[in-house]
C-alpha cells in the first residue's frame, strides 16, 4: 500500500466525477452517435476526457490546499466558484486550440 496524500485523494475522486459527468452528457446528447466517430476516434476521445478530468482535478486540489483544506472547510459557493473558473478556463483553452 502506497501512502496517499489529500491531493491524491482529491484527484482520485474528482477525476472520476468529472469523467462521469462528461460521459453522461455525451450519452444523453448522443453526441458520439451524431458525430459518427470511428471506434479509434472514440477511444482517443475517451483518453482525452480522462486527461482533461485529471488536469482539472489536479488544479482543483491545488486551489483547495492553498485554502487550507481539509483543516478548513470550503463553503458551497466558494467550491462552485473555483470549479466554474477552472472548467471555464479549460473550455476556453480547448476552443483556442481549435482556432
Amino acid at each position, binding site marked *: 500500500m502506497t501512502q496517499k496524500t489529500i491531493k491524491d485523494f482529491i484527484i482520485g475522486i474528482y477525476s472520476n466525477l468529472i469523467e462521469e459527468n462528461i460521459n453522461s452528457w455525451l450519452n444523453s446528447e448522443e453526441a458520439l452517435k451524431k458525430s459518427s466517430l470511428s471506434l479509434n476516434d472514440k477511444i482517443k476521445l475517451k483518453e482525452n476526457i480522462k486527461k482533461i478530468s485529471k488536469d482539472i482535478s489536479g488544479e482543483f486540489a491545488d486551489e483547495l490546499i492553498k485554502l487550507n483544506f481539509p483543516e478548513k472547510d470550503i463553503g*458551497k459557493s466558494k467550491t462552485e466558484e473555483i470549479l466554474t473558473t477552472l472548467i471555464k478556463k479549460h473550455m476556453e483553452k480547448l476552443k483556442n486550440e481549435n482556432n
Partner: protein
Amino acid sequence: MGGSKTYSISKVKRGGKISGSPGNSTLVLNAIQSSVQNEIIAQSLGAMISYATQLNTLVYALKFVKLAYKMYCAGEKTYNETGDGEEAIKAAAGIVVQEALDKLKGEGIRLAVSYALNQEDININDTTKTIIVDSISGAIENALK
C-alpha cells in the same frame, strides 16, 4: 446508392484523397481529428457549468472528500499494524457505520459512503448519488489496495 454515407475521420484517412503530399494530408486530418475532439470536450465542459445538477455533483462531493480521507487513514493505520487488507477495509468502513463491518469487502466501503451521504440532508437525484458513491468508494478501495 447503398453503402455508408457517413464520413468518419478514420475512413477519410484510409480512402480519402487530399491534394498535396500524403504527409500533408495526414497532418491536416490529424488537425481535424484533434479539433473535433476538442470541440466535443469543450461542449461537454460548457454543459457541466450550465446545468446545476452536474455542477452540484462536484460541489457536494467535496463534503465527502474529507470523510473519504479519514476512512483511508484509518484503513492504512490498521493495515500497517496488522498487514491484513480485509481488516484495513473494515477499519475504513467502521469510521462511518458499524453495520458495514459485517458486509463483504467492496460492499463495506460502498455502504459506508452511501450511508454517510444519506445522513446529509442533501436534495440530490439518484444518479448524482450513485456517481458520488461510486467515485468516493473507488478512490478509497484503490488507495487501500
